[in-house]
């Protein structure tokens, strides 16, 4: 792999710092949007070969067949996919937390897929907040495809990973979120496309220069 096609250790550290700033700002805004206190923490940035992506995601996201995984693609100079995983034991609590006062009771009872809809909506907001804040700091604008929901099964994950070009490497930005006082948490992973790397290298340089 050519060195210009990978982020070096310093660039990964700058990216991690940028995520720290982005998520600090995102959590304050999310609190206002969702009316729930939220912590975004443990940001980390690393590069993972696409051939090892499946095992990496399964292990670091603690995926099981019963997990719910929301996936959303984003487009622009900064492009790729984000996945958000809700552990199975908290799904019902997240649904009731967000939908209790929002949706008419009759709809909740009669619309099939309502639970998935609530998870998609909260997933879309959390992913949008994280990517939106990172894009803002990198001085670019992204657009999004509608999110989709799947399980943490091996076949659902294969379908997701097949979109990434092999034998390239993916830049992984990962973080954990938790809702204060509700004991609810989950994980978000932003997987940046290989074709974003050159743009990202330049943008990270500009980002650092703005602080010098």
């Amino acid at each position, binding site marked *: 792999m050519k060195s210009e096609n990978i982020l070096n250790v310093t660039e990964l550290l700058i990216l991690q710092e940028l995520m720290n700033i982005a998520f600090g700002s995102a959590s304050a805004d999310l609190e*206002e949007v969702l009316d729930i206190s939220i912590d975004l923490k443990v940001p980390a940035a690393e590069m993972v070969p696409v051939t090892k992506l499946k095992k990496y995601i399964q292990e670091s996201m603690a995926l099981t067949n019963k997990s719910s995984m929301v996936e959303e693609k984003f487009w622009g100079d900064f492009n790729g996919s984000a996945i958000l995983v809700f552990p199975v034991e908290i799904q019902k609590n997240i649904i009731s937390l967000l939908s209790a006062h929002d949706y008419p009771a009759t709809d909740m009872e009669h619309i099939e897929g309502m639970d998935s809809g609530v998870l998609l909506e909260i997933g879309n907001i959390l992913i949008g907040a994280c990517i939106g804040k990172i894009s803002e700091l990198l001085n670019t604008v992204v657009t999004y495809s509608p999110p989709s929901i799947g399980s943490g099964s091996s076949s659902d994950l294969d379908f997701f990973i097949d979109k990434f070009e092999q034998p390239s490497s993916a830049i992984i930005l990962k973080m954990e979120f938790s809702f204060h006082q509700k004991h609810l948490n989950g994980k978000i992973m932003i997987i940046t496309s290989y074709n974003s790397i050159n743009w990202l290298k330049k943008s990270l340089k500009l980002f650092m220069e703005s602080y010098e």
Partner: protein
Amino acid sequence: MNIPQLIDMIDVGIITLDSEFVITGWNRWMENNGKIPEEKIVGKSLFQEYPNLDNSWFRRNCSSVFRFGSFAFLAQKIHGNCFPFEPASSFHSDFEVMQQDCTIGPVRNEKGDIDQIFIVVKDVTQIAVYEKKLISMAEKDGLTGINNRKYLDSKLIEEFERHRRYNHNFCLIMIDIDFFKKVNDTWGHLCGDEVLKKVTSLIQERIRTQDIFARYGGEEFVILLPETELEDGIKLAESIRKLIELEVMNSNGKTFSVTISMGISAIHDGIADSKDLLDYADKALYEAKTSGRNKVVSIN
């Protein structure tokens, strides 16, 4: 062609709103379907015109777009519609209002700040109609119009789970039309079909809306009675038996009557799963058939 022309010609609704939810743009599709001209709605509050949108989920999604520059997707499957317009075609009579998928996104000014948002409204009524028909075809019996066995099986599992979690009682009645083969052989299969339709319609009128009534196969039917004790199930079964017995059937100028046999069982701790309950009711039905027919037998 310039962009404003395109926005008016495109086959989706486009609205723009400022941060106070005041309408700043309203394209021709919105004029045609909302029946409000652009000049009469621009400058007005969205919530004044469409109070149904003044709720936390809509505000939450719009706020996230303003704050993060992200998109929000309001799917028809969850929300039905955002704008209560009449369906665009008379072929969409399954729905009283147009079914819509809506996308909300940011509009940036020259400085790159988000000072407005857009809403794209897509008419998905036709897709929703097809989906509804497909679901119906997968769950309904083609001849009688009542639920099919696949639907019953899924509801039975759900009801069993409810019993396991909350200890809710329920009963199951298995029904068989007596000497149905004789009806077919004597009066023909068309007449047999009429009997099946008549029996189902009589039973359907007698049961509650929350009861699940399904064709189990051939001339066999099942009624699942949620929140019902065995004694109440037996009373209902007996009333249905009498109702069918007294009904005079007419088909092709011929008049005759039929009877039914019923086996009934209620959930209890000794029943391991939903199949067990069906087995109990089936055994009770067998006893009703072998001990003279036109009767209700219960096993618990």
